[in-house]
């Protein structure tokens, strides 16, 4: 069956709810409307208003009540309507969601998922195209996941719901309409494992979420136009990060770059670049480069394409990697 990423996420929610009574889905407009991106479409109709319901407009409230629900043994899967509207919940997430297991000396785990459609490229107005992954990944106690394909969207969301610690599930909204032929339920590597999406020898391109498609496009063009064979690694789980897979690829190719939409400064790519530079020191023929959005607030729709990393920007960086 051909599914979009939004469809795969919808199926994952439905299947998880069918399999486990303790899974509840809530957030702004997720009930009757089925979510502004329709990711929760049909869930309220099938599962009832106890299992899938709308909330008042209160993101701290959504995250804070999810904690209470998880404490009581449910598995809440809540939605922040857009990346830029996940910020009011940051205090609950940083102070409590991330820390509760540790605060209680391991006695209380919180099996909850916070879904956040994130990233740009859809021509939205301000505050609707943010890439907040660094805030979450830097916060000890959170597990941060971002799928790059419909199959991973399904498999990783199901795994996140079944996970016994809180997961920040970042959905690359510009890829909601990305299609893939899928046989549900799809099998995929578990949370915590990166994957080599395309093998290569010239250089390693590390990507996640919305940039997986972009990196693969760059790899195709690199091969077609330049004869460069890029190895594309999809991070999948941003925290904890599977450094083993990354180091293996970088030591093999001797050249690596990391690509993300978020701003560069103290961005997620800094971690990968810093850690690869340390662990693959001596194997690297060039420094690890970062191909990122700029250190500016996300720009307006008419110029966003100049902010977003694309295949050209990746190929330009590969060129620089090869010049060292």
């Amino acid at each position, binding site marked *: 069956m051909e599914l979009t990423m939004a469809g795969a996420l919808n199926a994952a929610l439905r299947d998880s709810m069918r399999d486990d009574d303790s899974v509840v889905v809530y957030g702004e407009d997720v009930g009757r409307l089925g979510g502004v991106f329709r990711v929760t479409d049909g869930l309220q109709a099938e599962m009832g208003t106890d299992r899938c319901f709308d909330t008042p407009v*209160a993101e701290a409230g959504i995250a804070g009540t999810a904690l209470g629900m998880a404490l009581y043994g449910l598995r809440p899967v809540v939605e922040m309507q857009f990346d830029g509207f996940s910020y009011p919940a940051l205090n609950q997430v940083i102070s409590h969601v991330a820390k509760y297991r540790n605060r209680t000396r391991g006695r209380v785990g919180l099996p909850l998922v916070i879904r956040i459609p994130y990233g740009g490229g859809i021509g*939205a107005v301000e*505050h609707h195209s943010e890439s907040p992954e660094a805030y979450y990944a830097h916060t000890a106690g959170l597990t941060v996941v971002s799928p790059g394909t419909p199959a991973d969207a399904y498999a990783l969301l199901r795994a996140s719901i079944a996970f016994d610690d809180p997961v920040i599930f970042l959905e690359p909204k510009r890829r909601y309409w990305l299609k893939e032929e899928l046989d549900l339920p799809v099998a995929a590597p578990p949370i915590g494992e990166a994957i080599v999406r395309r093998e290569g020898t010239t250089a390693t391109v590390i990507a996640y979420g919305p940039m997986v498609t972009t990196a693969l496009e760059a790899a195709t063009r690199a091969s077609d136009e330049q004869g460069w064979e890029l190895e594309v690694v999809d991070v999948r789980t941003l925290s904890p990060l599977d450094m083993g897979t990354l180091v293996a690829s970088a030591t093999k190719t001797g050249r690596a770059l990391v690509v993300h939409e978020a701003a560069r400064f103290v961005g997620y790519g800094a971690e990968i670049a810093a850690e690869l530079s340390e662990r693959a020191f001596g194997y690297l023929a060039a420094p690890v480069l970062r191909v990122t959005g*700029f250190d500016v607030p996300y720009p307006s729709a*008419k*110029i966003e394409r*100049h902010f977003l990393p694309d295949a050209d920007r990746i190929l330009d960086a590969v060129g620089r990697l090869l010049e060292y």
Partner: protein
Amino acid sequence: MSVEVSSAASGPSSFPGLSQAAWQDVAAEGALGAATPHDVDLSAEQLRSLYRLMALSRRVDRQAINLTRQGALGVFASSQGQEAAQVGAVFALEADDWLFPTYRETVGTFARGVDVVELLALFSGSWHCGFDPYKYRVAPLTTPLATQALHAVGLAMAARIKHDPIVALTFFGDGAASEGDAHEALNMAGVYGAPVVFVVQNNGYAISVPYRLQTKASSIALRAAGVGIPGIRVDGNDVVSVYGAVKTAVDRARRGDGPTLVEAVTYRLEAHTTADDTSRYRSDDEATEWRGRDPVERFLRVLREGGVVDDAFVAEVEAEGEATAARMRDFLFDAPAGDPREMFDHVYAARTPQLDIERALLEQELRAAEES
């Protein structure tokens, strides 16, 4: 803004015995009074101005929806049905007062005098805020809900510190009223006696979520009691009542008597935005019923009956509306994208070394694109 330091809270003191307790109950319905009549001082000239602004607003809104359908705007949040609430409220402001709107208040902001093309930048995608806030004393249209209410309170506090007799008016919605920031804004305004007027447009929905799933309170105005400030609930489709209520609040603030929360009960006739589909969550009947209370038509009817406007005036306003719509088409269709290099210019007062490097990279990309 000097606030007296009080002694401790003193409350009910009782110690009635061992099987008798005592306490005070808060009535579940709060303390909303019945609707009472108030005289409103509006000249025929002003009444015509109100009508003109509402009618133009309606035309602007319709044109914006069309421009969205045609791709000139990326999205648009219609104010149709809410013209009385928005226009009536901003009409109560003086020139030096400040306005803090949301994405919903395009027509209120237009009525405040902001150039319509500059105003729509947010939706056309040319820049986030297309107008100069200092020129119009209007803050940017704000999408993170309820956040701008705190900005209004802060500006009002600053004005009080500087002894400037100005007022800040902020709009927010029935949904936004659930946010923590709304509460913090109302409470802080109360504590500092800040000259701010909170106008909640209760249009019955937060996207698909109806008022009854937003709060158990029968009225958002009741929040006022919780923070010790005056609250008003008014028919948001009656421009004269909205003006009267907000003017009362504005005058109170300017006098130094602090903030007021005004709830204007209204209805959004169109979808949440052009990207929304109302059929998923509300009935046509409901919308039809509210169309019967259309604030623009309703007002026009009374104005005609009262002999305040004649056909010529109405035709004049219509022509002005058409001209405004034409201007929107002229300037919003195929509006130039703007120079992408500008994205580096307003992050800080001065560009940082890192931004220079990034700008150079973009420059190189742009040059490469030109060449190919």
